[in-house]
C-alpha cells in the first residue's frame, strides 16, 4: 500500500516535471517567434520590409542571431564583480520562466494549481528586478548603474497599482487560485473581467508593460541616454539571456493578463470544450496580447522619467484604489457573481 502511494507520488511528480519541460520549450520557441514577429510587425508599422532573407519569410533570422551570439566571446569587464555579473542574467531568466508554473492552460492543466497562485505570480515577478539591478551594479559602469536604479524604482512604483488591480480580480473571483479565477469568468464573454472590471484591466495592463520594461516604459535600457542601460556591459550569451528573459516576461505577462482578464482558457459560449480547444483558445488570446505589446511599442514613444513616476503614483495608483472600491461595493451590493 505504501509503495503504491510512493509510486503515485512519483508519477504525479514526473507528470509535472514533464509539463514544466514542455512549457519551457514552448516559451523559448515562442520567444523566437515573438522576436521575429516583433521585427516584422515593426517593419510593417514603419513601412519597411523587415528580415525576410533567412529561411521562409525570414523565420530563421532569430536562430541565425542566436548562433552568432553563441560564437561570440564571453567578456567580463575587468573592474566588474565577476560573480554578480554571471548571476544577474540567471536571476532574470529564472524569474521570467518560473512565473508560468501556476497559469492554467486548460481546465485542470497547470504545472502547479496552488491555492495562492495569484500571490505566487506577484512574488516571482517582484524578484525579476534583482536581475536588472544586480546587472547594473555589477557592471561597474555609470550607465549600467543608472539603468539598474531606474528599473528598481520603476518596479516598486508600478507593483502597487498592479497588486491593487489584482486584488479587485480576487474580490470578484473570491479566490486566489488561478483556475477558480478563470472559472469565475464563465464562458460568456460579457462576464470576463475585462468588461466586469474594466478599470482594473487597464491598470493591470499598463503596470504589466512597466514591469516587463517594455516600451513606452523601457527606461532601464534607454539607448539614447544610457547606451544600453543595465545590459551595456553584457555580450554574447549573457546578453542573449537578458533578451530571452525580456521576451519570456512579455509572453508570460500576456498569459497572466489573459488568465485574469480575458477569460483564460474559456471558449466563448462553449463551457464544456475539450482540453485541446481550451488550450487553443488560451494560445489565441495570448498571441493577441503579445500583438498588443508589439503594437504599443512601435506606436507610443518612450516616457520621460518624471512622466513615468507621475503616471505610476499620481494616476495609476489612485485609479486602481478607486477601482478596488467600486468593485468591492459592486460585489457587496450585487452579492458577488
Amino acid at each position, binding site marked *: 500500500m505504501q509503495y503504491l502511494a510512493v509510486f503515485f507520488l512519483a508519477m504525479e511528480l514526473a507528470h509535472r516535471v514533464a509539463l514544466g519541460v514542455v512549457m519551457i520549450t514552448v516559451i523559448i520557441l515562442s520567444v523566437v517567434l515573438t522576436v521575429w514577429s516583433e521585427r516584422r510587425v515593426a517593419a510593417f508599422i514603419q513601412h519597411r520590409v523587415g528580415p525576410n532573407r533567412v529561411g521562409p519569410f525570414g523565420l530563421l533570422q532569430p536562430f541565425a542571431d542566436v548562433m552568432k551570439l553563441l560564437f561570440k566571446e564571453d567578456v567580463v569587464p575587468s573592474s566588474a564583480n565577476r560573480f554578480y555579473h554571471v548571476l544577474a542574467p540567471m536571476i532574470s531568466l529564472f524569474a521570467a520562466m518560473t512565473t508560468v508554473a501556476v497559469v492554467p492552460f486548460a481546465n485542470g492543466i497547470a504545472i502547479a494549481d496552488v491555492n495562492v497562485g495569484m*500571490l505566487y505570480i*506577484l*512574488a516571482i515577478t*517582484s524578484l525579476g528586478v*534583482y536581475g536588472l*539591478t*544586480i546587472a*547594473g551594479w555589477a557592471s561597474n559602469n555609470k550607465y549600467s548603474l543608472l539603468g539598474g536604479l531606474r528599473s528598481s524604482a520603476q518596479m*516598486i512604483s508600478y*507593483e502597487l497599482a498592479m497588486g491593487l488591480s489584482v486584488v479587485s480580480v480576487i474580490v470578484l473571483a473570491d479566490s486566489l487560485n488561478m483556475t477558480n479565477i478563470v472559472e469565475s469568468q464563465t464562458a460568456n464573454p460579457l462576464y470576463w473581467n475585462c468588461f466586469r472590471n474594466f478599470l482594473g484591466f487597464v491598470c493591470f495592463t499598463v503596470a504589466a508593460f512597466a514591469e516587463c520594461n517594455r516600451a513606452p516604459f523601457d527606461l532601464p535600457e534607454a539607448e539614447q541616454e544610457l547606451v544600453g542601460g543595465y545590459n551595456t556591459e553584457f555580450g554574447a550569451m549573457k546578453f542573449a539571456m537578458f533578451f530571452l528573459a525580456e521576451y519570456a516576461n512579455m509572453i508570460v505577462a500576456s498569459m497572466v493578463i489573459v488568465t485574469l482578464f480575458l477569460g483564460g482558457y474559456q471558449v466563448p459560449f462553449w463551457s464544456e470544450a475539450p482540453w485541446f480547444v481550451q488550450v487553443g483558445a488560451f494560445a489565441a488570446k495570448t498571441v493577441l496580447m503579445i500583438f498588443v505589446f508589439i503594437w504599443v511599442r512601435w506606436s507610443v514613444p518612450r516616457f520621460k522619467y518624471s512622466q513615468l513616476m507621475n503616471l505610476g503614483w499620481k494616476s495609476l495608483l489612485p485609479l486602481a484604489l478607486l477601482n478596488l472600491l467600486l468593485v468591492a461595493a459592486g460585489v457587496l451590493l450585487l452579492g458577488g457573481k
Partner: protein
Amino acid sequence: MDVSGILFVFLGAQIIVATVGTVWSRNPVTSALFLVLNFFALGGLYLLLEAQFIAVVQVIVYAGAIMVLFLFTIMLLNLDNERALAEKFDLRKGFAVLLGGVLLVELLYIIGLKTPIPIKQTALTTVQLGEAKYIGRELLTNFLFPFEIVSILLLLAVVGAIVLAKKNFTTSPKS
C-alpha cells in the same frame, strides 16, 4: 528522517549561512543579497508548516519590496568603501550592546522557565492558517484590535518618513 525533516535541515542550514553571511560580508550589496536568501529560506519554513499564504507574502513583502528598496538605497549611496562605514565605539553603541544583552538574558530566562506565555490563541487549524480567507476573517474579527494598532503604527511611520523628507527639502541648500 522523512522528506519534511530533510527539507527542514536544509532550510535551517540555509538560514544560518545566510544570516552569518549578512553580518560578515564586507560588501553591503552582498549583505543585502544574503538577507534576501534568508527571507527565501524563511518562506520555505512557512511552507513546511503548511502556511502557504504567509510564505508567499513573506517573499512578496520582504524579498520583493523591502529588500529592493534597501538595494536601491545601497547602490544610490554607492557604499563601496566599507572602512568608511566602520564606526568607532561610542556611547550609543555601548547602550545598544547593553540593551541587546538585556534582551538576550530575558529571552534565555523565558526559554529556561518554559512557562507558557499568555498569547491569544487562534482556533484555526494548520490547514486553515494557510488560506488567505481564514486569515483575513480572523484578523478582522478576533484580532481586530492588534490589527488596527499595527495599521496605526505603519501610518505613523509613513507620516514620519514624509516629515523627514520635507525637513530635508527645506533646509537643503538651493541648487
